[in-house]
C-alpha cells in the first residue's frame, strides 16, 4: 500500500524475515491462484466508468485474467475508483472500502481519482481518493484507455504474486 497518508501500515515481523523454502513455494502457488481470480467491484462515479465497462468488453477482456465483476463489495477483491469523488460521495467510497473483506486492493483510475484532475479547484471535489482510502495503484489519463486499465490489473496481479501469504504480519497503529 503506497498511499501518502495511511492510517495503518502493514510490516512483516522481523524474526520471520528470512525466507523459508517451503513457505515461499507455497506462497508462490497460492498467490498464483489468488492473482488469477481478482474480482472487481461494479463501481463508477463518472466518465471513467464507461472505460471500465469497455475493459470488461470484447477488445480488452478482463475475464481472460479471471477477473469478473461482482456487484456486492462483500464478494470483490479489487475496488476500481473510476471517476470524480465528490465530498458527498467520499463517505460512500470509504464505506464500500470498509465493506470489502481482506485482502483488498484499490486502483485509482483517472486524473480525478488521482488528484482531483480537471475539478481540483472545485468546492465539492475530493483532491485524490487517497485522502480517504489507501490506494495501491494510480492510473493516469482522462479517462485512461481500456488497455491502460488492463495494464493496471496486471500490476495488481504482480503485487499479489509478490506478497508473503504465510508470513505473519502485524498491524502497527
Amino acid at each position, binding site marked *: 500500500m503506497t498511499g501518502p497518508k495511511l492510517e495503518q501500515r502493514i510490516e512483516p515481523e522481523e524474526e520471520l524475515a528470512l525466507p523459508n523454502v517451503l513457505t515461499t513455494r507455497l506462497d508462490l502457488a497460492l498467490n498464483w491462484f489468488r492473482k488469477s481470480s481478482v474480482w472487481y467491484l461494479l463501481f463508477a462515479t463518472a466518465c471513467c466508468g464507461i472505460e471500465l465497462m469497455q475493459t470488461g468488453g470484447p477488445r480488452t477482456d478482463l475475464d481472460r485474467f479471471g477477473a469478473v465483476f461482482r456487484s456486492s463489495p462483500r464478494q470483490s477483491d479489487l475496488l476500481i475508483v473510476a471517476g470524480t469523488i465528490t465530498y458527498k460521495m467520499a463517505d460512500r467510497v470509504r464505506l464500500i472500502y470498509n465493506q470489502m473483506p481482506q*485482502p483488498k486492493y484499490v486502483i485509482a483510475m483517472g486524473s480525478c481519482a488521482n488528484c482531483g484532475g480537471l475539478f481540483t479547484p472545485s468546492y465539492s471535489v475530493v483532491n485524490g481518493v487517497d485522502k480517504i482510502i489507501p490506494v495501491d495503484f494510480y492510473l493516469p489519463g482522462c479517462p485512461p484507455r481500456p488497455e491502460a486499465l488492463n495494464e493496471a490489473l496486471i500490476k495488481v496481479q504482480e503485487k499479489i504474486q509478490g506478497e508473503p501469504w504465510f508470513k505473519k504480519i502485524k498491524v502497527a497503529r
Partner: protein
Amino acid sequence: MRQIADWIILNLFGVADAGSWPYSWLVYLGMMVFAAVLAITFVAIFAGPVTWVERRVAGRIMSRLGPNRVGPQGFLQWLADGLKNLLKEDLIPDAADRPLFRLAPHLVWMGMFGAFVVLPFGAHLVAADLNVGLLYILAITSLVVLGLLMAGWASNSKWALYGGIRSTAQLVSYEIPTAFSLMVIVILAGTLSTQEIVRAQGGWPWDWFVFRNPFTFLAFFLLMTSSLAEGNRVPFDLPEAESELVAGYNIEYSGMRFLFFLFAEWANLWIMAAIGTFCFLGGWQIPGVSPDAIDALLARSHGWSWSWVGLQALSFAIFAIKASWLVFVVIQIRWTLPRLRVDQLMIACWKYLVPMTLVCILGVLAMALLIPQGGVLDYLIRGLMMVVGGALVALFLWRARVNYMLARDSYRKMEGRELWFPPYRLV
C-alpha cells in the same frame, strides 16, 4: 447400491441371505458413507469445471475469449476461484443474525445435495432407489427455499431481504409446473421410483418418453423451463437481478460462505439436467442391452465380472453425455435471453405453464386410453415426434454453423487471413 451391497455380502462373507445376517447393517453403512463421499466428489468435480465451461461459452457468445490464463486454456480457473474464496476474510456483518447467517448456506447446500441420493447414474449406480424417488426430489429441494429466505432475512439488508422473498415466491410458484410435468412421467411409467422410470423406457430414441407422444414432447420443454426458474437461472434470475437488487439474497456473503451458494447453483444445474434425462431422455439405458440382462449378470457372477463393470461404465457414460448436453444448452440459454420482470414471471407461471402442464396430463391420459401401446399408430406417432425432435437438433447445429460462418467472414475481412477455431469453440 443395495444390490451391490448384497453382492458384497454374498461374495466377501459368503452369506446368501443378507436380511437375516446380523452384521449386514455394517456393510450397508459402509456403502452409504462410500456413496455419500462419491456423490460429494462428483458434485465438486462437476461444479468446478462447469463454471469454466460457462465462462468460455459466455465469452464466445459475447465475442470475447473468457478465462484462458490459468492452466491449459484456463481450465484451472475454478481452482483459482475456490482457493481465493477460501483465503478471503470470513466476514459476518455486525447487524446480521449470526446463527441464521451461518446456517443458511448449509441449508441451501443440503437441499441441493439431498437430491443426489435418488439420481440414477447407471444401471446399479444409485445411492438409494426409493420407491417415492420423484416425490423425494421435489420435497428435499424445498429446503433450498428455506435457506434462501433465511439468508435474505439474516443478512439484515433490505436488498437481501427482497432477494430472499422474491426467490421464495418464485420457487414456490414454479414447484407446481415442475411437479405437474413430472406427473406425466409418473402416469406413463406407473411408478415414482427413479430407477423404475428409467427401466420403463428403452435405449433407442423411439423408446424414450420425450418422443412417446406430442404431450410428453411438450412436457419436456415445460419441465426444463420451470426447472430453469427453480434454479434461479437466467431468464428467471430475479432474486439476483444486479440492476435492481445489487446481488440478491447473497449480497452480504463473502468468501467460502458465498461459494456455497454458487456451488449449490451449479450442482442444481446438474440435478435439473439429470431429471430431464432420466425422466424423458431414457436415462442410462444402453441401446440394445436390456436392464434385466445387467441384473442377471450381477446375480449370476460369483466373483469379479468385467462385463458387468463395463456395462456400468457404459451406462454411466451414456447418462453423463445426455445430461452434459442438457447442461450445455441451459448455459447457452443463460447467455442468450434477457431477464423477465416480476409480474411477467408470475404470469408465465400461473397463466401459461400451469394450464399447459394440466393439458399435458389430460392429453397423456387420453392418448394412453385411445392408442394401444406398441401398435402401428403408436410407433407412427413416435416416429413423427422423432422427426420434430431431430429437426430441432438440426436447427441448433445449423444456427451454430451460421454463426461460425459469420465470424469467419468478418475475421477474414478485418485481418485478411483465415480464421481457425478449435472444434470445441464451434458451437
